[in-house]
């Protein structure tokens, strides 16, 4: 058996937000994959072309397939493959959102050091997401 965390504990708040977010993103991911593989939403890179492209380095594949890099994939969400990239990006955003949420919860508990660490972690994840460092894309 397990000891339940207090409802007001920032750890509990983090768990609640992460559970909800993970469920939503999983459902979106499964739907996006079904639409992509069934052909209901056409991909930017035709599925039959993949075996000749996935042997190339990522940079070469982007050039050959005229595919987007950085955040430019947001303009391609009408394609099945980039709908799946959106699902993967959503997975990568979950921790950032949950950490941002618990900063206030830590402050309310008087845990300033933990709030500062959470804020710094949010800044690192935000910088990573925005590509705000050399060689990001």
């Amino acid at each position, binding site marked *: 058996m397990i000891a339940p965390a207090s409802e007001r504990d920032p750890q509990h708040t983090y768990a609640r937000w*992460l559970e909800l977010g993970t469920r939503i993103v999983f459902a979106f991911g499964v739907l996006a994959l079904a639409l992509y593989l069934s052909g209901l939403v056409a991909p930017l890179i035709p599925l039959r072309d*993949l075996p000749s492209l996935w042997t190339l380095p990522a*940079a070469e594949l982007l050039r050959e397939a005229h595919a987007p890099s950085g955040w430019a994939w947001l303009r391609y969400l009408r394609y099945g493959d980039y709908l799946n990239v959106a699902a993967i990006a959503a997975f990568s955003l979950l921790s950032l959102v949950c950490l941002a949420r618990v900063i206030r919860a830590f402050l309310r508990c008087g845990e300033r050091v933990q709030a500062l660490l959470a804020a710094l972690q949010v800044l690192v994840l935000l910088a*990573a997401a925005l590509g705000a460092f050399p060689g990001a894309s």
Partner: protein
Amino acid sequence: MIRVILLVAGLALAPSALAAGGDAAAWWAWPLALFTLSFLLGVLAVIAGVGGGVLFVPIVGSFFPFHLDFVRGAGLVLALAGTLAAAPTLLRSGLASLRLVLPLALAGSICSLAGALAGFALPVNVVQSALGLVILAVAVLVLITRGTDVVAIEPDAFGRLLGLNGEFNDHLQQRVQWRTRRTALGVAAFGGIGFIGGLFGLGAGWANVPALNLLMGAPLKLAVGTSGLAISIINSSAAWVYIGRGALLPAIAMPAILGVMLGSRLGAHLLHGMPSVAVRRIVIAVLAIAGARALLRGLGVWP
């Protein structure tokens, strides 16, 4: 055990047979083979107590035709997805500590970003050779490491400053109190582990757990749970490098994620009925073969 090794070897070598078929092999044969292999790796990984990514990257990177960029990207997000799914339960039970993770993940995520960038800057044969060496080292680590339930330790000043202590109930309903020692060293270790994880697309639970348990003195159960939570944050930062570089190909990443996750669920159900020592030996053998293959491929000895 021999049958399982033959099955893994057969699935790993199936891509060579598909490749020999040339264009006759349909595009969907590859994701299907990848899903099947990932499923089996997911089952084995849970029973052996290692992450799926550490098996996935060297095997798929060595035996499938995909470029290592896409395999590393898929390995990273499959570790991310698996740990995100498990984290809420671990947090609620107290078997993962958000307070303990915050300083470790901060160092890990910054270094993981650097590792992911280094992976794209280095020649692929160098990355492949280094991956082979790391996987061989992991096989040795899994072979020799035994977890320990250290409880009565003297906390250090840094750990006290960061409030790194807590408690949880174990399976005997006994309250286990924990605190950390050598906290600065632990933060530095997570930086190094994060770099390796970002570079090769590994989840790195194989290194996180010994760092938390043996180095920092966290009880083994807490170390396992907290390692998963740390991976869910650390891999989030490196994932953006792979997304930005176009190294996440859905036809590779999504079947791998689903395969490992479904396999892990089956593995969790089979956990009590399986001879875990035998499975652990199989995983060590698979790691040794995949590590040697990656090293030889990187060196151009076995292309």
